[in-house]
C-alpha cells in the first residue's frame, strides 16, 4: 500500500479553516427544499423544524410562559441544527474536491488551441470550440486543449495537473501511449492530436463533476438504503402521530399530566428516525469517491467504487503487478564440457551493450565470477541489437560471434552455423522454464552452444501476504500472463495466487470474465491496451491505466492516474470500506433508538397517574438514566441526536477502520463497536448533556 500512497497527492487536512467556512455556507444553501427532498429522513426533520418554529412563534407572541418559550426555543434550535449538521457533513465531503475542481476549471478556460483547417494551415481557436474529430498541433510549452489521441509525433508531457505527479511522461503516436489529456502541458517536442471528446465531456469535465458531486447519482446500494430509511421513518412517524390520541385517552383516564405537546412529539420523532445515517449517507458516498481519488484513481461513478467492494475475482496481469516488470539473471547453467566461467564470460560480453534490465542483470551476475567490465572499443566489438525477427542479441568480437536469445531462435542460428544442439542444453532450458524462469541460450560460432542463462521473474515483495489477505476476504486472484502454462504455473505457485490464465489472449481473457460472471461472481481487472477495452468494459470493475489508450480509458469505469496495476487491490479495499462505513453507521443509528426511548418516554408519560405529593407517576421509573426533568430529558435526547451527526462526520469522511479479514470476524468486530456501542453510547451521552443543561440553567426546575 505504501508504494502507491507515496505517489498520491498530499491533501489538505480534513478540517482546515477555509474548508469548514465554505462547508458552513453550503450547509445553509442546502436548506433549499428541492435539495432537502432528495433525502427523505432529513426532509422529515426539516418539516418538523418548520412546524416547531411556527408553534414557537405562536407561543412567544401568544404570551405563553417564559419556561415554555425557553424549552420550545431550544427544541426548535436543535432541530434546525440537526438539518444543518447533515447538510454540513455533505458539504464537507464535497468541499475536499471543490478546490481542486476550481483550479482544474481555471486551467481549462484559459486554454487556446491551433486547429488544422481542412485546406491546410492553422487557426487559433478557444479550447471550448474544439469538437470531436478536430486535429490540433501542440508545441513545447503549450497546454493540450482537450482529450485526444496523438496521431503524429513524440513528446514529453507534464501531467501534474491531472495526476499530481511532476515527472514528465512520454506520449507518442501509435501504440499504447497515445492518449493525451486536456489540461496537461507539452514540455518538449510537438504532437499532432485528434480530439476525442467534445467540451463538457472531457476527462477534466468528468473529474470536476465528480469531485463536486454535482451530477452525483445515487448508487444502487444507496438507493436501497434510502428505501430502508424512508420506511423506518414512516413507521416511526406513525408511532409518533398515533401517540397523541393514545396519550389523550390515557390522560383522560388517569389524569396527572397534560398530553404531550406537538414540539415534544416532533422531538420524539426526530430522535427515533435514523437521522444519524440519514444525515451522513451522502457524505459517506462522496468521501468514498474522494478516497479513491486520493489514491490517484479516478472513478467515473460512485457505482464503480461500490462495485469494487463486491468483487469476488481479481484478474491481475503478471508483469508489473505480481512480478517486477523486469526479469533478472540468477544463474548460469553451462552445457557439459563448458565451465561456468566461460559461459559467464560469453554472457557478459554479449550483454555489455544491452541496456535492458535483463541485460544489465546478466552483467551484474557475471561480476560474481570475477569478470570486470571490459573496455569494448579496444576490441573493435560490434553489437548486434535485438530485433523481433531474430529474437537474439549479441556481439561480434573480432572473429568471434556470440549470440544470446530465446531458445528456439538460438537453435535456429546454431543450425544455420552447421552446429549441433547438445541434448543437455534442451533439458536445461526446459528445466528453467518449469520453475517459472525464462531460459536464454548463449552460443558462439567457435564452440557452439555454451549454456543457459536463467532469467527469473521476481515476485514483488509482500504479494503472497496480500493474496492471503484477499483470500481471507473471500476474493480469488487470477494471474493473467502471456507465458506458457509451465512458467505460469510456477510463478502462480510462488506468488500464491489462486489460479492463472496462461498464454492469455484478449479473447481468452474475455472468456474468463464471462465464465466468472456466469457463476455469479463479480470481476475486477486492469488493462491499458486497445485490445483490453472489451474486457475492461465487460468486467464489473475495470481500471484503465492512464498511460493506456483512449479506448481503454473509455471502456473501464476507473482510470488509475499513476498507472500502477497493483492499486486494484486498494480500490477493492476502499469499496469495501465504503460499504462497511454505511453498514456500521446504519446499525449505530438504529441501535441508538433504545436509549432515546428511555429518555423521552418517561418525560412524556412520567406524570400520568401522578400522586399529588410525589409529582411523578409510575412511568417515571423508565427514567433509568436519572435525568433531571422531562424538559431536560427531551432536550438532552434531541441535542445528542444532533451532535452525534457532527461527531461522526470524521468517521463518515475517513471510513471505518479497515483490516482485511474474513466476513465472520469483520462482522463480530464491527457489531461489537457499532451495534453494541450504538446501544450503549447514548446513555452516558444523554446523561452528560442533561447534566450540562442543568448546570447552564437551560432546563428550568419543576
Amino acid at each position, binding site marked *: 500500500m505504501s508504494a502507491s500512497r507515496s505517489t498520491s497527492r498530499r491533501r489538505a487536512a480534513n478540517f482546515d479553516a477555509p474548508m469548514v467556512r465554505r462547508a458552513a455556507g453550503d450547509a445553509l444553501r442546502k436548506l433549499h427544499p428541492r435539495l432537502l427532498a432528495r433525502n427523505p429522513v432529513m426532509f422529515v426533520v426539516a418539516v418538523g423544524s418548520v412546524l416547531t418554529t411556527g408553534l414557537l412563534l405562536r407561543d412567544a407572541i401568544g404570551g405563553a410562559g417564559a419556561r415554555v418559550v425557553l424549552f420550545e426555543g431550544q427544541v426548535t434550535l436543535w432541530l434546525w441544527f440537526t438539518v444543518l449538521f447533515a447538510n454540513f457533513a455533505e458539504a464537507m465531503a464535497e468541499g475536499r474536491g471543490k478546490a481542486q475542481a476550481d483550479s482544474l476549471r481555471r486551467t481549462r478556460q484559459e486554454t487556446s488551441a491551433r486547429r488544422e483547417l481542412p485546406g491546410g494551415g492553422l487557426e487559433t481557436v478557444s479550447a471550448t470550440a474544439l469538437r470531436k474529430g478536430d486535429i490540433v498541433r501542440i508545441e513545447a510549452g503549450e497546454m493540450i486543449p482537450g482529450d485526444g489521441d496523438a496521431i503524429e509525433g513524440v513528446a514529453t508531457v507534464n501531467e501534474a495537473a491531472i495526476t499530481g505527479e511532476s515527472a514528465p511522461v512520454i506520449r507518442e503516436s501509435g501504440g499504447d501511449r497515445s492518449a493525451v489529456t486536456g489540461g496537461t502541458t507539452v514540455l518538449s517536442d510537438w504532437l499532432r492530436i485528434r480530439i476525442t471528446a467534445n467540451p463538457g465531456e472531457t476527462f477534466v469535465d468528468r473529474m470536476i463533476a465528480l469531485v463536486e458531486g454535482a451530477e452525483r447519482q445515487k448508487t444502487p446500494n444507496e438507493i436501497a438504503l434510502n428505501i430502508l430509511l424512508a420506511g423506518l421513518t414512516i413507521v416511526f412517524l406513525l408511532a409518533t402521530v398515533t401517540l397523541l390520541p393514545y396519550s389523550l385517552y390515557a390522560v383522560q383516564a388517569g389524569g396527572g399530566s397534560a398530553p404531550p405537546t406537538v414540539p415534544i412529539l416532533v422531538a420524539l420523532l426526530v430522535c427515533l428516525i435514523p437521522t444519524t445515517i440519514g444525515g451522513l449517507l451522502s457524505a459517506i458516498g462522496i468521501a468514498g469517491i474522494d478516497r479513491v481519488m486520493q489514491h490517484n484513481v479516478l472513478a467515473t461513478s460512485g457505482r464503480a467504487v461500490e462495485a469494487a467492494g463486491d468483487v469476488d475475482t481479481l484478474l491481475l496481469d503478471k508483469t508489473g503487478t505480481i512480478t517486477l516488470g523486469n526479469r533478472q539473471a540468477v544463474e548460469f547453467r553451462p552445457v557439459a564440457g563448458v565451465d561456468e566461467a566461460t559461459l559467464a564470460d560469453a554472457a557478459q560480453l554479449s550483454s555489455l551493450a544491452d541496456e535492458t534490465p535483463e541485460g544489465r542483470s546478466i552483467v551484474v551476475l557475471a561480476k560474481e565470477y570475477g569478470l570486470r567490465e571490459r573496455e569494448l572499443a579496444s576490441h573493435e566489438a560490434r553489437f548486434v541489437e535485438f530485433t523481433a525477427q531474430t529474437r537474439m542479441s549479441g556481439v561480434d568480437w573480432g572473429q568471434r560471434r556470440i549470440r544470446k536469445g530465446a531458445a528456439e531462435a538460438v537453435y535456429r542460428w546454431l543450425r544455420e552455423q552447421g552446429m549441433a544442439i547438445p541434448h543437455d542444453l534442451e533439458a536445461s532450458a526446459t528445466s528453467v522454464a518449469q520453475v517459472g524462469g525464462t531460459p536464454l541460450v548463449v552460443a558462439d560460432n567457435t564452440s557452439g552452444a555454451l549454456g543457459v542463462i536463467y532469467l527469473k521473474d521476481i515476485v514483488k515483495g509482500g504479494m503472497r501476504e496480500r493474496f492471503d489477505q484477499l483470500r481471507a476476504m473471500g476474493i480469488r486472484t487470477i494471474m493473467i500472463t502471456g507465458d506458457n502454462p509451465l512458467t505460469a504455473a510456477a510463478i502462480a505457485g510462488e506468488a500464491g495466487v489462486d489460479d492463472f490464465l496462461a498464454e492469455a489472449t484478449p479473447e481468452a481473457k474475455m472468456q474468463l470474465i464471462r465464465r466468472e460472471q456466469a457463476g455469479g461472481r463479480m470481476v475486477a481487472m486492469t488493462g491499458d491496451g486497445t485490445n483490453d477495452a472489451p474486457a475492461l468494459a465487460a468486467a464489473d470493475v475495470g481500471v484503465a491505466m492512464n498511460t493506456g489508450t483512449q479506448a481503454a480509458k473509455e471502456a473501464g469505469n476507473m482510470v488509475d492516474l499513476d498507472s500502477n496495476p497493483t492499486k486494484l487491490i486498494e480500490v477493492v479495499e476502499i469499496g469495501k470500506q465504503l460499504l462497511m462505513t454505511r453498514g456500521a453507521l446504519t446499525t449505530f443509528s438504529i441501535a441508538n433508538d433504545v436509549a432515546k426511548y428511555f429518555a423521552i418516554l418517561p418525560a412524556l408519560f412520567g406524570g400520568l397517574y401522578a400522586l399529588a405529593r410525589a409529582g411523578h407517576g409510575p*412511568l417515571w421509573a423508565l427514567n433509568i438514566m436519572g435525568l433531571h426533568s422531562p424538559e431536560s430529558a427531551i432536550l438532552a435526547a434531541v441535542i445528542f441526536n444532533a451532535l452525534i451527526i457532527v461527531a461522526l462526520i470524521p468517521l463518515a469522511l475517513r471510513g471505518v477502520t479497515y483490516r482485511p479479514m474474513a466476513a465472520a470476524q469483520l462482522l463480530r468486530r464491527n457489531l461489537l463497536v457499532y451495534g453494541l456501542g450504538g446501544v450503549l453510547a447514548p446513555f452516558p451521552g444523554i446523561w452528560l448533556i442533561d447534566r450540562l443543561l442543568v448546570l447552564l440553567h437551560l432546563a428550568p426546575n419543576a
Partner: protein
Amino acid sequence: MTLLGWAQIALFLALLYLATRPLGRYLARVFAGERNALDRVLGPLERLIYRLAGIDPHVEMHPTAYALALLAFSLVGTLLTYVLLRCQGWLPLNPMGFSTATAPRGATAMTPDLAFNTAVSFATNTNWQAYGGESTLSYLSQMLALAYHNWVSAAAGMAVAVALVRGFARRGAATIGNFWFDLVRATLYVLLPLCVVFSLVLVSQGVAQNLAPYPTVSTLDGGRQTIAMGPVASQEAIKMLGTNGGGFFNANSAHPFENPTPLTNMLSMLSIFLLPAALFGMFGAMVGDERQGWALWAASAVMFLVGVTTVYAAETAGSPLAVRHGVAAGQGNMEGKEQRFGQAQSALFTTVTTAASCGAVCAMHDSLTPLATLVPLVNMQTDEVIFGGVGAGLYGLLIYAVLTVFIAGLMVGRTPEYLGKRIEAREVKLAMLFVLVSSASILCLTALAVSLPGPSSGVLNGGPRGFGEMLYAFSSATGNNGSALAGITANTPFYNVALGLAMLVGRFLMMLPALALAGSLAAKKYTPPSAGTFPTTTGLFVALLVGVIVIVAALTFFPALSLGPILEHGLMHAGRLF
C-alpha cells in the same frame, strides 16, 4: 417457578426440536412433488382433485398469477362462508335452531357485520371470535363454513411460504411454483394425516365428538344445566395444527371437552408449533443447507424463551395486592387458569398461542398480570414470527432475515446477500412494505378506536388495561392471531368491521409483498458463498436477527405499550387495579 414447571418447558422445546428435522424433510419432499410414504394412499385422491377441478398442477406460475390464484381462492371462500353463516337458520344440522325463531334464549344473532367479521376471521387464519360458538353457530356452520377455512387457510399460508423459499432456492427463474399444487398437497399430505392421528388421540383423552343436540341435565344442587357438545375433536386437531385457534366453545382450550388433560394440553401446544417449526426445517432442506433453517429456529426459540420466562415469572409472582392479602399464597396469580394445567403449562400455552398466530387459549388472557400481557402483545406486534403461523411464521421471519442481512450485512463490506441472492432496492422495498403494513394497521386502527367515543366506551376496564385491550384486539387481528384480552364488547358494527379490515390487511397485504419478494429473488443470479460472505448460520446472525426484530418491530410499539401494560404494571405496584 418450580423445577417441574421448567422441566415441562424444557420437554416441550426438546420434543419440538426432535420433530423439526424429520417433518421438515418430509415437507420438502411433499412440495417438491417427490414420492413419499403416503403416495400410494393419497396419490389417487390428489389426481382426482386435479381432474375434477381441471387443474394442471405442473404449470409453473409467475408471482402475479400465483397471487391472483391465492386471492381469488380466498375471496370465493370468504363470500361462500358469509352466505352460509347468514343462511344457517334455513340449513340443516342446526339442532338448537340458531338464527331461527326457536333459538335458545341468549343466543347471538348472525348480523351482517358479525358474519363479515367471522367469515374474514376464518379465511385469514385469524379465528378472532366476536361470538360464542355454542350460542351462535349451527353444527353445519362450525363444520363446513369454519372448519373448511381452518384447513385451507393453513394450506394457503404454507403455499406462500413455500413459494418464498422457492424464490431463494431457484436461480434465474421467472416462476415460483403452482398455487393449486401447493394448496392441495399441503392439505392432503400434511394436514390430513396429522389431523387424523391427533383427533384420535384427543378422542382417547375424552374430547367430545358427536352431532347430538345439547342435553339438559340436573345438577347436584338440583339446578338444570344445558351441556353444549358437538363434533369437537375433529375440529380441535386442525384448530391447533393450522394455528387457527377458533374454539368450538367460547372457553376455547380451557373447556374440558376441548382440552381435558395436561397431556392433551401438552400435545395441543406441540401441535401449534409443529408445522411452523417443521417449515424452518423444510426451508433448510429446500435451500440445501439445513443450518439456515436451524438459525431461524434458534432465533425463534430465543425470543420464545424470553417470552415464556416473562409470563411464567410474572404469573408466579402474582399481584402484590393478592400477596399482601394472603390470597392463594404461594400459587401466584391463578385467576383465569385451570388447576389441571397449572402455572407452567398456562404460561407456556399463552406464549405458544400468541407467538404462533394460533390464538387458542387455555387460560384467560384478561386475567394475566400486566407484565404477562406484554408478552402476547409483543409476540403479535412482531408480525407473528416467533415460530409464527403456519407459513406466515416462515415468510415473516425470512423477510426479517432479509432486513437483517441488509442492515448489518453491509458491515462486512459487500452488497448484502442472503442465501446467495443479492439484497437490493426492490427486496428492501418489499420487506419494508411488509413491516409498514402491520405497524400501520395496528397503530392507526387502535388510534381510531381510542378516539371514537363509541368504541372506546365499549371497553369494560378503564385506564391502561382498557387501552391495552384495544391495542391487543388490533394487534391480534392484524397478526391474524385471534386471541383476545377480552374486556371489549367486540360484537359491535365498529369492531366487527374495523377488526375485519385489520385481519384482511394483516393477511393479504403482507402475503403480497412476500410473493413479490419470491418472484424478485427467484429471478436473481446465485452468488456462491466465500469467506467474504455474510454468514447467516452463526450464533451472531441469530443474535442480530433477534436484535433487528426487537428494534425494528417491537420498539415501534414501545410508546404504546408503555401506556398499556407497562403503566398498568407500575400502577399495580402502587396499589391500583383496573
